[in-house]
């Protein structure tokens, strides 16, 4: 689950866990309705944002807790705790208190604790939010691998889109308490269904105009006098306002004639050299914030600030979405 702060991700997660009561709708896990099942009987593992490791227990006692309250025998408990600790590579840390561990280690313990009783579903509420960037990326892969090895379902809440793209099979994009789109990462990026998703996932150029005509999958949109041929996705028909969404890397600078149906005159306002590519801000169709990513290939670096250029793109890459 991905979305900006306050979009309802955590509330939704808490409903799954049973700490919030849904006003309507059902929570169903494996065919069983869970609405009236209290949290401790749902058998859902959960990793909290601040880990919520019990500070008065050692790491091993923390891991043993879910097993003890299930009445598991001492020997079984010990064996499972040992296996879980080995899984997160903290085999020698069982006797320590959570406060004696680093952030990354605490995070692993929290993960192991949520997994040790073998739940069908594990909920994670921004589990990597408190870690620094390098450790976060490392932990993303670790969680992904553990997930692949154990094969349970994970519902993962984050507001970091790169984390969501890295870790997910499917992403639910939240805004204003509503799921905007539920799709695999590639679909979200390539085929956003509304302006919010297009804007939220990755970089995006927006052009706002009026739909003039529709012809099958394509439509003509008038943006400040320039008519753009676009891919018709999600608008209210002829005469309605529409936001055109266009990825910066799908725009070509100074294209050869006849390749693209959309070619417009533009003026280079700013150039930022980024090594593998150059970010080029141009003014086109009345939009001063239009970004073009120019690959740093042979013969492409001759543009200068203030140059008049032409930009072009395919109709399929320009998606006409809701205003």
């Amino acid at each position, binding site marked *: 689950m991905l979305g900006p702060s306050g979009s309802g991700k955590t509330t939704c997660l808490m409903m799954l866990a049973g700490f919030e009561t849904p006003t309507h709708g059902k929570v169903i896990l494996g065919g069983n309705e869970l609405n009236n099942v209290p949290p401790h*009987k749902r058998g859902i*593992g959960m990793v*909290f944002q*601040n880990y919520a490791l*019990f*500070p*008065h227990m050692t790491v091993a006692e923390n891991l043993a*807790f879910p097993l003890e309250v299930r009445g598991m025998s001492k020997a079984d408990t010990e064996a499972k705790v040992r296996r879980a600790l080995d899984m997160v590579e903290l085999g020698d840390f069982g006797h320590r208190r959570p406060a004696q561990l680093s952030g990354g280690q605490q995070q692993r313990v929290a993960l192991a604790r949520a997994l040790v009783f073998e739940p069908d579903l594990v909920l994670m509420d921004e589990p990597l939010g408190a870690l620094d960037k390098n450790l976060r990326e490392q932990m993303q892969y670790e969680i992904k691998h553990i997930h692949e090895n154990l094969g349970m379902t994970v519902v993962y809440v984050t507001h970091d889109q790169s984390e969501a793209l890295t870790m997910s099979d499917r992403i639910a994009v939240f805004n204003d308490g509503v799921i905007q789109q539920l799709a695999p990462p590639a679909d979200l990026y390539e085929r956003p269904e509304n302006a919010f998703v297009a804007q939220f996932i990755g970089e995006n150029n927006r052009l706002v105009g009026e739909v003039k005509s529709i012809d099958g999958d394509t439509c003509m949109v008038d943006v400040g006098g320039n008519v753009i041929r676009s891919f018709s996705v999600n608008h209210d028909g002829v005469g309605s306002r529409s936001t055109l969404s266009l990825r910066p890397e799908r725009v070509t600078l100074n294209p050869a004639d006849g390749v693209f149906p959309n070619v417009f005159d533009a003026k280079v306002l700013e150039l930022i050299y980024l090594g593998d590519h150059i970010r080029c801000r141009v003014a086109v169709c009345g939009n001063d914030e239009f970004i073009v990513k120019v690959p740093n290939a042979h013969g492409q670096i001759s543009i200068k600030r203030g140059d008049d250029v032409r930009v072009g793109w395919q109709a399929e890459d320009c998606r006409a979405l809701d205003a």
Partner: protein
Amino acid sequence: MTVDAGTAPSGPILAADGTPLKVSLRKAQRVRKLRAFALVLPLLAFVLITFILPIVDMLFRSVDNPVVARNLPITLNVLKEWDGTGTPDETAYAAIAKELVEARENKEMGKVATRLNFETSGMRSLIGKSVRKIRRLKEGPYKEALIKIDKRWANTEIWSTIKRIGAPYTHVQYLAALDMKTQPDGSVGMQPEDRQIYGQIFMRTLWISLLVTGFCLLLAYPVSYLLATLPLRYSNLLMVMVLLPFWTSLLVRTTSWIVLLQRNGVVNDLLVWVGIVGEDGRIQMIYNQTGTLVAMTQILLPFMILPLYSVMKTISPSYMRAARSLGAKPATAFVRVYMPQTAAGVGAGCLLVFILSIGYYITPALVGGQSGTMISNFIAYHMKSSLNWSLAAALGTILLAAVLVLYWLYNKIVGIDNMKLG
């Protein structure tokens, strides 16, 4: 510039002007230290004068014993030669006769008699009577004369008491405070059964303090939990209700308990009206231990609630959620995850309430009656009524020692670093 490890300067690191870094650092910090000290100086002086000195004085007063030594020096000097059996010889009788008359003229005789009377009752009347008659006696032999006035002067015990009390420093007050006394033969033993009071009072003080602490904990725990978990709007209101009695005068609260709990008070009227007790079955709830317990629990409750609240406030609700998501029933989660985390607050609150209640004075004095009085009431009695300040000081010192021992025990078991007052 690179520094080669082989040629690095040995010895102390030097500052830019060539003085060792340690010295110049100390110099730089001296002004700051002085300023910090000057800032705490007023408080230090205040604590010294109003807290440390009185306690030292109290400790001193509990062993200080000047009255008899000052007024009967010759007698005591003579008694040094006495072997403690039978009666001393004529010189001792002559000396005490002379010195008692002198003491009467200096208006010191009352003090001497009172001091001796603490040790052996009847001494006051004996001395008073003897001095009145002895003044008319022009010359000796004093021994026969005194024994003629009162035959108790022939008792070995009287003289051994005078000899013992004559020491300028003494532990008799501590013996008295522990219901012990020196027997005529010089050994230390318990007071007779009917004269033992302080041991019982100390035990009762400990017992009442323990009960008050227990009741406070029982009542405060749920309230603090509510305070820490309710939404701010309600918890603020609740906090005001907790603090309101705190801002009311102690005397007002204690006396309102008298109004409520007395035989013809509100609670008894209510019980009679409902029919739980009959008109003649009204329950005695005040001027006894019950009254002390009820009033003290109510008065000391905030001292338990506040440390508990401040600790509970810091416990994130996600711990309970985590415990429940891991499969613990709400009660199990509370006992195994929440309660251990409040241990610091429980320790702090209990220590605070216990130490406050062990020396509590006004409330037991007002509502305690006979069975609800505590050691502090006896200390006050000896300060104000019996004027035996030395015994009061000894009782106070024992109380102080008991609190320190408890504090030490607490530190051993719980660890004072784990305590959180806020």
